[in-house]
């Protein structure tokens, strides 16, 4: 039986983190009263025009630079036409011909085995990043056969990141998206929370035999978490293989992932192949970006976006942060991944290291094994931890100075977890967990024990 090569590409929409929308001054906010964050332009009332938000352009440039893209100094806006109730204009303004950034790459890491002891680095090519409008939200009311439309989200700025089909399974796609999410959050260009719809991922999946041309691909939508992304892709790969091995064919269709059933199902047929009738957006001139060399002398600086200026101010990306952690503290690369994977954990770790004499290589064990497992068990974030970095630092100091044993330290930790406001020292005193340091006192105790067991002592001395 010839092996199957699965091919996975991704289209990711990240909502730009900005105060107002891409082309209008209405507010960007999750969960507000319906249609309260809608301007006349967003509702597509006649006579309104798009006005580009500077912050959205900067967010896209930052993201393009972080993903090693070439930034197009001249990019264009287009209209993509289709009819839907939550798209009042009947078209979406996007960048189809010349997007703002092209030809980048993203590196991500995978664990080879389940013990997280060996990591391998992979890259995926970024085809392009384009600016575009989000649509409104439709709530389907099947009982009354109607759709309720809320335009609060209509017009919010999106960055569409297109990843080339360089991935081969759900795990790779999930790892790539996770890394992209961390990068976006570090840059601040998007908060990228999937549960709030700030990061939406569509997967393109196909299979073929090695040496043969690529198979027909399907598009999988409606994926609400990174975990489901991996599941959906792996299911679809299996489904296609089984279909083909049974002599069937794959349709070039759009399928939705059903998280309850764990499978993909065909979406409603949208009247055959879509023809979006792309045309240049007539109300927007080309978007021109500058660098230090091409900076025009007499322009109002509020009207100028300097790519080099933005590049100089990029924060350390996750990959750089991990490297620095490994170099500074001597921890393992796998540890640095876990530290960055939990919001606030790296800062917590560094704070503990500062407070204690214990070596970072030992501290990391407490962070990753004890603290993290407690947090996970109780479904808490680092910020919600009842044990602060100060308390943990004090506890580790007691351990380091050998005032308590490691078993006792675990007990104290469990007590601290209750969050009753006691310090480690107080708990040690209360539960009498302190190791005796006084030599004389130890001798007295030992002597008392020996005195109390005369027979055993004689037996021992006789051999």
């Amino acid at each position, binding site marked *: 039986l010839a092996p199957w090569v699965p091919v996975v590409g991704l289209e990711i929409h990240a909502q730009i983190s900005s105060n*107002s929308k891409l082309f209008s*001054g209405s507010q960007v906010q999750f969960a507000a*009263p319906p249609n309260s964050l*809608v301007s006349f332009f967003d509702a597509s009332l006649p006579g309104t025009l798009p006005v*580009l938000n500077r912050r959205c352009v900067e967010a896209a440039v930052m993201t393009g630079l972080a993903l090693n893209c070439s930034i197009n100094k001249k990019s264009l806006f287009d209209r993509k036409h289709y009819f839907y109730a939550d798209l009042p204009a009947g078209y979406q303004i996007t960048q189809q*011909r010349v997007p703002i950034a092209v030809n980048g790459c993203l590196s991500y890491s995978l664990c080879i085995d389940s013990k997280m002891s060996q990591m391998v680095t992979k890259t995926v090519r970024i085809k392009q990043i384009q600016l575009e409008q989000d649509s409104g939200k439709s709530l389907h009311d099947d009982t009354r*056969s109607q759709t309720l*439309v809320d335009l609060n989200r209509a017009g919010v700025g999106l960055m569409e990141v297109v990843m080339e089909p360089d991935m081969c399974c759900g795990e790779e796609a999930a790892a790539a998206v996770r890394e992209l999410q961390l990068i976006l959050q570090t840059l601040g260009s998007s908060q990228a929370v999937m549960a709030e719809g700030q990061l939406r991922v569509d997967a393109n999946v196909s299979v073929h035999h090695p040496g043969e041309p690529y198979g027909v691909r399907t598009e999988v939508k409606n994926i609400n978490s990174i975990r489901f992304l991996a599941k959906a892709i792996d299911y679809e790969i299996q489904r296609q293989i089984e279909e083909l091995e049974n002599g069937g064919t794959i349709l070039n269709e759009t399928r939705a992932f059903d998280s309850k059933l764990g499978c993909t199902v065909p979406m409603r047929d949208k009247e055959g192949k879509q023809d979006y009738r792309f045309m240049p957006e007539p109300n927007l001139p080309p978007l021109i970006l500058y660098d230090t060399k091409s900076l025009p002398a007499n322009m109002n600086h509020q009207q100028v976006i300097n790519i080099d200026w933005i590049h100089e101010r990029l924060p350390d990306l996750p990959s750089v942060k991990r490297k620095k952690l490994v170099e500074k503290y001597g921890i393992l690369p796998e540890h640095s991944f876990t530290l960055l994977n939990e919001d606030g954990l790296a800062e917590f770790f560094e704070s503990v290291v500062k407070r204690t004499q214990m070596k970072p290589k030992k501290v990391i064990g407490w962070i990753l094994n004890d603290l993290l497992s407690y947090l996970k068990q109780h479904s808490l974030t680092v910020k919600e931890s009842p044990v602060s970095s100060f308390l943990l630092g004090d506890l580790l100091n007691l351990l380091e100075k050998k005032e308590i044993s490691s078993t006792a330290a675990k007990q104290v930790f469990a007590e601290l977890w209750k969050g009753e406001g006691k310090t480690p020292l107080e708990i040690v005193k209360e539960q009498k967990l302190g190791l005796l340091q006084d030599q004389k006192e130890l001798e007295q105790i030992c002597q008392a024990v020996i005195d109390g067991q005369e027979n055993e002592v004689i037996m021992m001395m006789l051999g």
Partner: protein
Amino acid sequence: MRALLLGRWLRAGPGPPRPESRNGGNGGHRGNGGHRGNGGNGGHGPLRKVSVEVLDHLEHLALVDFRDSEGVERLHKAIQFADQLHEVNTDGVEPMDSVLEDRCLYLREDDVTEGNCTKELLENAREKVEEYFVAPPGNIPLPKLEERETFLQGS
């Protein structure tokens, strides 16, 4: 300022929509730069007919109704008028897609200046439910050619 040759075919008011004479597929690009420089017909070029399939496709896409043979005729004449553009030799000239190409794209500061006008926006809505607009469930596609009462069937 470029001067436009106004042919006899110019009508006041909006004419029928201009179709792409190629059947654009998914994500069809607006490729052109077509240089058929050897035209020289002065608006009397061959009348290119548009097939029934394309007309039906257009009616689906743009939800227009060509209504009768006169509407289709007007479409053909509009195409013929526009085809005059091919008479211009555009070898080595970058296509222009906007007369705004030399203008500066104004960048707005990221401040909240609009919104909060729910009542006004819903005033014109025929139906509303608790401040939501009401729409039919999903798109209702135009019925297929065979099932519609349109003169296109006879063509």
